[in-house]
């Protein structure tokens, strides 16, 4: 098998054994990125020069006897993470010229661990989208079929990892933006517990929902990276001060005795019967490993999409008020006065979906509507969190589909925003309740991958990754590579 198809763990061993240098690995992947870019458009920026410099530094460190589990290994960062001295666009014209003056904590930690940044992944504008079609830099295409979307908003991260342009990518998840593209591209994606990973330097969309995480080709690689990015950060007061466990060491937890809950509601409506069958097949693998399956119910989960489309736009309208054409970002030409400067810089700098969400948020927070929409949504959010808490008093993990269907065609859902929003029907609940959740490949519908979602209680990442790993030891769906990228 070629180097690009290896996992991080295998690549780390190869670097240590001097079978391969970091510079050789970096060159090989940069070449793959270059040849895939016209088809997939998975990157906004490819940072070849810094990558080769970081790789050379890593090789020198390795030669001098320095070790480290991530030293010299490649990483792709979603273009929502600020990278010191490197353009950081968030997929928006608004930040087309923005060169971040500091590193996000996630970026700084991985840089300190000796990882080599290959580039910045394309994404939906300000992470608002489920198909990567809202990016100012054009849509990302799905490596399994370039006529289809890769999912979003972390579509570039998922497509790049699926096409083996890099072994691992950072990503973020506000309503499903890690898990949904991971499912549609056939890779493994983890959204950690809210607060597990610092949000400092991660461009804000909806601050009570946003969480950084990882997309890789295996649960083992996700575990390795999560250990490196998790933890308290004095720059993010919502990051949680709690010890970071050894996620890799916990991968061997047995499945015997694990109580798995299956949500009645997730199988009720809208789920493609073929996706449903793949998920049921996956559950039988867990039963074979000694886990027990029972039905659980979340009576209010059906309201998660409506609650989300009040809370997320409300927070978005506040967060994006900072883009004023004054301090950084896009400014319109020849403003007549200050109001004109604000209105035209924002009107021209933001794309259609971002403006739609800002207006939705402005409306639900405006005088006379706050109680009816925002306060009501926050109460429903509490009901949904209570439902999960009750379910987790009976089961250790909840399993179900990540998405209602496999990847859909580009343009298929762009005419009606509500149709697009309903893509995230199975993923949004975990964000509203702040829960960790992972999506892993569990088979195919035709030539397209299907994702199994595993949701756990707060801070149950070890259990989720162990469950994902146990499945990946029994199956090889996660090792399937899109045709043409082998």
């Amino acid at each position, binding site marked *: 098998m070629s180097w690009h198809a290896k996992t991080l763990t295998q690549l780390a061993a190869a670097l240590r054994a001097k079978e391969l240098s970091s510079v050789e690995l970096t060159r090989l992947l940069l070449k793959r990125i270059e040849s895939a870019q016209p088809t997939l458009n998975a990157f906004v920026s490819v940072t070849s020069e810094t990558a080769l410099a970081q790789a050379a530094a890593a090789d020198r460190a390795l030669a001098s006897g320095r070790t480290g589990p991530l030293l010299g290994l490649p990483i792709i960062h979603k273009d929502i993470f600020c990278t010191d001295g490197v353009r950081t666009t968030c997929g928006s014209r608004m930040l087309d*010229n923005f*060169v971040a*003056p500091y590193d996000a904590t996630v970026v700084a930690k991985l840089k300190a661990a000796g990882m080599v940044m290959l580039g910045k992944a394309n994404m939906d504008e300000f992470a608002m989208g489920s198909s990567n079609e809202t990016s100012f830099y054009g849509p990302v295409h799905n490596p399994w079929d370039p006529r289809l979307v890769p999912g979003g908003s972390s579509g570039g991260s998922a497509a790049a990892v699926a096409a083996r342009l890099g072994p691992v990518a950072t990503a973020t998840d506000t309503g499903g933006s890690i898990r949904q593209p991971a499912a549609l591209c056939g890779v493994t994606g983890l959204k950690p*517990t*809210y*607060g597990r990973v610092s949000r400092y330097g991660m461009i804000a969309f909806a601050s*009570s*929902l946003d969480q950084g995480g990882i997309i890789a080709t295996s649960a083992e690689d996700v575990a390795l990276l999560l250990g490196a990015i998790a933890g*308290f950060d*004095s720059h993010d*007061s*919502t*990051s*949680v*001060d709690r010890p970071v466990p050894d996620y890799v060491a916990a991968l061997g937890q047995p499945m015997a005795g694990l109580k798995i809950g299956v949500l009645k509601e997730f199988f009720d409506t809208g789920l493609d019967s073929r996706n449903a069958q793949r998920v049921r097949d996956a559950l039988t693998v867990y039963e074979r490993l000694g886990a027990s399956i029972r039905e659980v119910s979340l009576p209010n989960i059906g*309201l998660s*999409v*409506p*609650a989300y*489309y*009040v809370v997320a736009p409300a927070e978005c*309208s506040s967060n994006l008020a900072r883009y004023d054409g*004054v*301090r*950084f*970002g*896009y*400014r319109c030409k020849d*403003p*007549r*006065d*200050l109001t*004109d400067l604000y*209105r*035209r810089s*924002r*009107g021209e700098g933001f794309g*259609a979906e971002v*403006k*739609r969400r800002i*207006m*939705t948020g*402005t*409306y639900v927070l*405006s005088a006379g509507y706050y109680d009816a*929409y925002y306060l*009501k*949504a926050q*109460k*429903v*959010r*509490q*009901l949904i*969190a209570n439902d999960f808490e009750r379910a987790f008093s009976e089961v250790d993990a909840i399993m179900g589909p990540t998405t209602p269907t496999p990847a859909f065609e580009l343009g298929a859902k762009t005419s*009606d*925003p*509500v149709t697009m*929003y309903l893509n995230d029907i199975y993923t949004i609940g975990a964000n509203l*309740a*702040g829960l960790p959740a992972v999506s892993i490949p569990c088979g195919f519908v035709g030539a397209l991958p299907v994702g199994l979602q595993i949701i756990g209680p707060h801070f149950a990442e070890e259990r989720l990754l162990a469950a994902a790993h146990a499945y990946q030891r029994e199956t090889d769906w996660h090792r399937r590579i899109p045709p043409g990228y082998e």
Partner: protein
Amino acid sequence: MDRDSVAAIAHLARLELDEPELAAYGESLTRILGLVGELDRADTAGVAPMAHPLAGLSQALRPDEVTERDERDRYQANAPRAEAGLYIVPKVIE
């Protein structure tokens, strides 16, 4: 949601929209409000609005000490217009 309501919201959000955009957003915001209107189905009597996804955590505090360096020039390098350490905008007071 009619044209004038959309225009009022767009002004609150300081977004310049042209007439076709006002019409298109009127239609899509109406659909979105239809979706979120489903929240009325929920019985939320006696439920406190969620303030934080992790219940029981208190806000982290730190000692009130200066920890950051002055990096004004570096940050202002991203400004559309800055001079002498100041951000330049159109004249506000005649």
